[in-house]
């Protein structure tokens, strides 16, 4: 398939062309032009960035390139809580020339979070931490000092030989660089991200897109949309309602898939494959959040395109607005961007801490008829209000699925009834009689769904409103529904039979 290599606008064009039945001619065009270099995958500019006034938009785009790079040239931004993959290395023999392969010894950094296979280090970044090259500078032909970037040219795990490449190339001329000496130390950075990228592009990009926006070439055809990671929000987690997802949550979702959706189970991935994929997805999510929050900063300064035109109508001069914006971009935005990365990064780090994990304080209540009955009562109670969405019989057809909601941030009602998620997609409350549980079928999984809600959806977190034993009773009741609880729940949704009088305790 060609699709993964095409940047998104081109891909969208391809999709709409396909709808017009033009796909065959398009393929023909691509076939003719498709023998040269493949187009490089690119990150898509986010919707909220596109709403900014042009100079602000360019500033955000430039910052993203500086901090995250492009898919094929990712940046290891060391302040992010991403395990980019780090090895400590030491040179074991002295080379003749800088670029000669030398025997080295590699050790994975002790604080590594992600298992990875060490074979492929090509292209990984390299920092000399001791020896003549550790100042990372050289003199160019005009006598100016230049900063050098090093990367792994090739590494052969069989012979433990490593060759290093340096950029800019001007400094690489023979005789100008000190050859590595025995005992020189260095750090290799980024191979996890590279392996993650490669695997992601092969297995995930179809649906989730190059940028993780859920708009891969196949994604558009699904009625249940692939996750757009850019809000940093994942539905099925083991963490509290205001916490991000843990690595383990993403590993579980990839391994098990999401039953009842198009997300398949990838049980055949090894730990060394799934680790880098998860890390790459976390990195894409952080990148997306960073973009959205950067946009919010500019919107806060009233620099959306709409703001600027309104401000001009209100009497402000365009030049004055632009000068102020330029000053902000130059003197404040770099600090703001650093701060954003720290705060977003801090949230992802916090999710890995033990106190972010939802752990029931008591063991599951025995699944007895009594417990199910208590659960049934709670299901219909004003405290839990489950029936409101999940319906009186748990079929996912509660009254809220028939109401027309007001679109957030506007005064307009939706034209379609029912519930919507944070990505703006229509969403149905789970039919609990189906026995299909998207976030896992263990009682603990259902407990966590109730305790923390489902992030990014209208399923609220009940952890502060229900006691542990109450949650377990609801778990027992909900899990009995696929088999007929025999509890006399009416099969007909009474709300559909116009009951005009308000119900419930006021």
């Amino acid at each position, binding site marked *: *398939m060609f*699709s*993964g*290599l095409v940047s998104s606008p081109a891909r969208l064009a391809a999709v709409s062309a396909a709808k017009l039945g033009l796909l065959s001619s398009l393929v023909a065009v691509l076939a003719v032009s498709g023998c040269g*270099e*493949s187009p*490089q*995958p690119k990150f898509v500019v986010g919707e909220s960035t596109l709403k900014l006034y042009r100079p602000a938009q360019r500033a955000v785009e430039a910052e993203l390139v500086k901090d995250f790079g492009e*898919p*094929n*040239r990712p*940046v290891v931004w*060391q302040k992010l809580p991403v395990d*980019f993959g780090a090895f400590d290395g030491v040179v074991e023999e002295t080379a003749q020339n800088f670029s000669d392969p030398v025997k080295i010894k590699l050790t994975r950094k002790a604080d590594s979070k992600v298992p990875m296979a060490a074979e492929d280090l090509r*292209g990984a*970044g390299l920092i000399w931490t001791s020896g003549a090259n550790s100042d990372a500078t050289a003199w160019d032909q005009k006598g100016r000092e230049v900063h050098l970037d090093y990367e792994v040219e090739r590494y052969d795990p069989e012979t433990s030989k490593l060759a290093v490449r340096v950029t800019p190339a001007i400094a690489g001329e023979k005789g100008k660089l000190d050859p590595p000496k025995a005992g020189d130390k260095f750090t290799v950075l980024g*191979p996890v991200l*590279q392996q993650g990228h490669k695997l*992601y*592009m*092969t297995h995930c*990009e179809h649906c989730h897109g190059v940028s993780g926006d859920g708009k891969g070439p196949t994604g558009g055809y699904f009625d249940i949309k692939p996750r757009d990671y850019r809000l940093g929000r994942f539905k099925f987690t083991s963490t509290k309602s*205001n916490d991000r997802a843990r690595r383990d949550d993403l590993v579980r979702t990839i391994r098990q898939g999401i039953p009842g959706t198009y997300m398949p189970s990838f049980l055949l991935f090894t730990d060394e494959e799934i680790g880098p994929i998860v890390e790459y997805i976390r990195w894409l999510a952080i990148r997306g959040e960073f973009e959205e929050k950067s946009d919010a900063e500019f*919107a*806060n300064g*009233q620099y959306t395109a709409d703001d600027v035109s*309104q*401000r001009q109508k*209100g009497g402000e001069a365009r030049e004055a*607005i632009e000068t*102020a*914006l330029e*000053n902000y971009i130059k*003197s*404040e935005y*770099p*600090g*703001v961007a*650093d701060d954003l990365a720290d705060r977003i990064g801090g949230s992802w780090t916090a999710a890995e801490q033990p106190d972010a994990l939802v752990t029931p304080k008591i063991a599951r209540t025995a699944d007895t008829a009594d417990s199910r009955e208590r659960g049934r009562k709670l299901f219909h109670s004003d*405290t839990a*209000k489950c029936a409101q969405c999940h319906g009186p019989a748990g079929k996912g057809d509660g*009254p*809220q699925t*028939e*109401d027309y909601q*007001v679109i*957030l*941030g506007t*005064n307009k009602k939706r034209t379609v*009834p029912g519930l919507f998620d944070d990505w703006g997609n229509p969403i149905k409350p789970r039919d609990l009689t189906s026995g299909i549980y998207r976030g896992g079928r263990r009682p603990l999984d259902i407990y966590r769904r109730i305790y923390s*809600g489902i992030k990014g959806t209208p399923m*609220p*977190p009940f952890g*502060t*409103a229900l006691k542990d034993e109450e949650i377990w009773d609801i778990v027992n009741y909900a899990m009995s529904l696929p088999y007929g609880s025999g509890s006399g729940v009416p099969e007909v949704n009474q709300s559909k039979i116009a*009951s005009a*009088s*308000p119900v*419930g305790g*006021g």
Partner: protein
Amino acid sequence: MTTGASSPTSITIRHGKEKSEAPAVAAGGGAQGGGAPAAAGGFGTLKGRVIFQGAPPKLESLTALAETKEAICAKAGIPNDKLIVGEGNGVANVFIFLPKAPAGVPVPPAPSEPVNFDQKNCRFLPHALIIRAGQELKILNSDSVTHNTHTGATRSENYNSSIPPHFATGIDFKYQRSEAKPCETKCDIHTWMRAYHLPLDHPWAGLTGPNGEYEIKNVPAGEQKFQVWHEAAGGGGYLDRNLTVTIKPGEVTTKDITFDASKLEL
């Protein structure tokens, strides 16, 4: 063929502390640009009324609007708080605020007492409030049903927590950062419930009462540019982005604001 047989990647390293020499955020030098020059000294009061011109549209109660009556949790009819016009056509819940603290004026610290935010008869009370970033918002529930309070800030982390029935202890929440305009808070269980919170990093803001009056005390003297925002206004809610007022030290400046139906987007 694999989909993403991308060409070999290569990594660039960006060190953590690269930007530490960037200048610290100068107080008041921020995104707004033209903050008013430092108050030459002294503070004054700004007060006035926000008045609706012409006959205000009558909004149907939310109880009447609900498609499925079961969704309504209160026996009492739930009034529509989108546009509240009181005596003498005064408009309630209009925010009048400086988008940022004027340059050179010391900003008083946020009050230590919390702002209460209750839920009663399936309505958020108050419907609109101003709070300082870092100040405590105490979320209460006077109803016999569970609510969940779900904030919608753009700069602060979103917050979502259920609030148990008859919960007088309250859950403490803080907006970490200020916002450019009021942000929407919702309840996912009772989807019509909406409230508007304006977290600011300074105290120079006012909110109109039931009859449209507002008063902002201790405004730094000099020319100040206020913004006027209401949830029912079109164009992002702004009734006026540039309400220019000259505040005289020790004096009360009166500024009435009028608007008509053409400004509304209902």
